[in-house]
């Protein structure tokens, strides 16, 4: 039973890290991007391919993943961040699909639909991390490191610029801040963190395939952020705990196995709707997640 809990907790932290990176964009910077799952995928695949095909160690492979993700992040940020809200969102969705299509189609490199099996246990120098408990320890440490980094970032002048930009773009420009520079930089940072999450996933499950980095998965991350609290750094982890924990708890209810997957989807959808109605700022959130004034519906212009 303890082993089982360790497994669940490991997933909670891995997804929590990805969700936290998403929150940097959504909650703090107010950037509406749907592409976050792609960066997780790029990190996961980098780790998977470099360790299985070239025999790299855990840390170098993860760093390579960060490099790949930040590179892609920079490209799409520059391409899309000039567009206003709706179109940015739509463009990021296009990017999400394109990356997934690349992971599927570029078979020579990624092995396509079959995925990458047999990813080795995380190896750091001579040390191989086999036991699930030790792996959880490492995951938690890495999450703690990034949490501290993110917290410093958010409380620094840079962080204040982010939130100012979220709340009032025009005023921010008016006081002379380089808006594009801020947007691109936060996008890139979020991409890098998401890639780390992907690498941690790859060495935990020890198998990756291209079907887990699509809209469904961005949606899951978004639910975690929303539920836990936008513009908080611990909220996403709480969201991950709730959204991953409930289906696992439901496992013990003895429902027929056939409908477990569907029940999960119903839980996610309902949780999101409840959050939207009852507590848009999320469980731990302080500021409301509203970006438009009440009253008449806005237009798709």
């Amino acid at each position: 039973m303890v082993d089982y809990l360790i497994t669940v907790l490991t997933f909670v932290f891995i997804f929590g890290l990805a969700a936290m990176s998403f929150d940097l964009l959504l909650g703090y910077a107010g950037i509406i991007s749907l592409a976050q799952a792609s960066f997780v995928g790029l990190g996961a695949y980098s780790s998977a391919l470099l360790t299985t095909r070239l025999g790299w160690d855990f840390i170098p492979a993860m760093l390579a993943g960060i490099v790949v993700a930040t590179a892609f992040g920079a490209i799409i940020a520059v391409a899309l961040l000039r567009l206003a809200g709706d179109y940015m969102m739509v463009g990021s969705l296009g990017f999400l699909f394109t990356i997934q299509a690349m992971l599927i189609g570029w078979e020579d490199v990624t092995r396509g639909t079959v995925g990458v099996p047999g990813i080795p246990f995380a190896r750091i120098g001579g040390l191989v991390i086999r036991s699930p408990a030790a792996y959880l320890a490492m995951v938690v440490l890495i999450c703690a490191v990034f949490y501290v980094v993110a917290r410093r970032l958010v409380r620094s002048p840079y962080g204040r610029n982010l939130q100012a930009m979220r709340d009032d773009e025009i005023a921010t420009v008016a006081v002379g801040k380089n808006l594009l520079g801020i947007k691109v930089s936060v996008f890139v940072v979020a991409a890098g963190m998401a890639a780390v999450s992907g690498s941690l996933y790859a060495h935990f499950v020890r198998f990756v395939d291209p079907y887990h980095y699509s809209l469904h998965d961005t949606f899951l991350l978004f639910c975690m952020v929303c539920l836990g609290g936008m513009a908080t750094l611990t909220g996403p982890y709480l969201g991950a705990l709730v959204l991953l924990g409930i289906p696992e708890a439901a496992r013990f209810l003895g429902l027929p196995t056939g409908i477990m997957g569907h029940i999960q989807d119903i839980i996610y959808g309902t949780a999101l709707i409840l959050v939207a109605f009852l507590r848009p700022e999320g469980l731990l959130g302080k500021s409301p997640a509203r970006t438009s004034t009440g009253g008449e519906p806005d237009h798709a212009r």
Partner: protein
Amino acid sequence: MRDSRFEGWPAVAACLVAVFGLLYGCTETPTGKKYTEYKLGATHPRSGDQASVGDQQVFAIEVAVEEINAKGGVDGVPLKVIVEDNQGKPTMAVTALQKLITVDKVPLSFTSYSTAQLAQVPIADQNEVVMVNVGASSTELINAGKYIVHVQPNSASYLRISTNYMLTDLKRTGRWAILYVNEAMGRSFNLYVKTLLPKYGVKDIFEDNWENSAVTDYRSIIAKALAFKPDTFFIGGFGNDMGLCLKQLREAGFKGPVMLSWGGGTVSEPAGLAVVDTYYGEQVIPDNDRIKALSDKLLNVKKLPFVGTQSINSYDAVYMVAEAIKYAKDHYGPDYFTGPNLRKALVEKKDYATLSTPGVMDPATQYLSRQLAVKSWDAEGGKLKPPKTIKVYTPTEFDAAPAGDLQKKS
């Protein structure tokens, strides 16, 4: 500016968890030696588009377990099979297997679905847990790992006999077009048939694929294939996709014979009359009382729409494992119920004559032998009749797993 409440608590909590984790990881948990039940695992698709295949397998396993336990189990100890849903996805299959290994501590698990098994094999080998394949047939599974044992014949065997039939009996030596699903199993069909056809003198081969089993519109691929002007088609997929592709192929005007990677209800249901003049290799289901009794239970009690080889093999797999457990108990001392011992027992016992479809275990490839035949369909009065056997092959003529023909794929 600064909040007065202590915000470092997440970091503290994290450190506590980390310390706990390290401490726990260093301690060993003892295992008991007296068995009140034999726990086995099973990972099958219970949701998603493969769910109907999962039903075929899991219900048959349940019937076998009920029967064995009704007779007192294995030397008085009942079997317990814990089924986990792999949702038809390899990542779910891997986590399901990991859960079965770490939480339920099973030494053996029944599994299905090629892509999932290929992902699970490294886990099984590392943890020394036996995988018993009751439903996957990708050629890549041959010699994929030490800890995988097969009750389901490999598609290489089906393809050998059906290709042989098409080329020797039907003399289709002209141009061939191959359409397949772009997953482990489909790709392996394509690669294997491409190595077979030249041996019979076929030189012009066209190939194209569709992305996954959820595709429903094959017309573009078909149009392109027809532009190649093939005489014969080979379609390799999961079932429903093959049926739809076949139907659309006939609608596009193709009238020649078509070879399929397999047949049965999943293909004929969407394809209907389009399956006339198609041929596939399949395991022979003997006509004995045990199979009749099993079919009866599956159709009337478990309410399956039809009984196929997946069910027969799943049923036999449970009996085979039960016999192996008994063999291990009789030969390997008190600690017999472990992965390595069960694997050894399965191979050493070799002869499984008491199964509903008797077979012999091949120690080199760990495949259980099955009898195979080429089958096809007839229609009468505008209605399709059940598939009929055209030509039977003895196991020695075409091995269960022709390992010699194949190169290992990376």
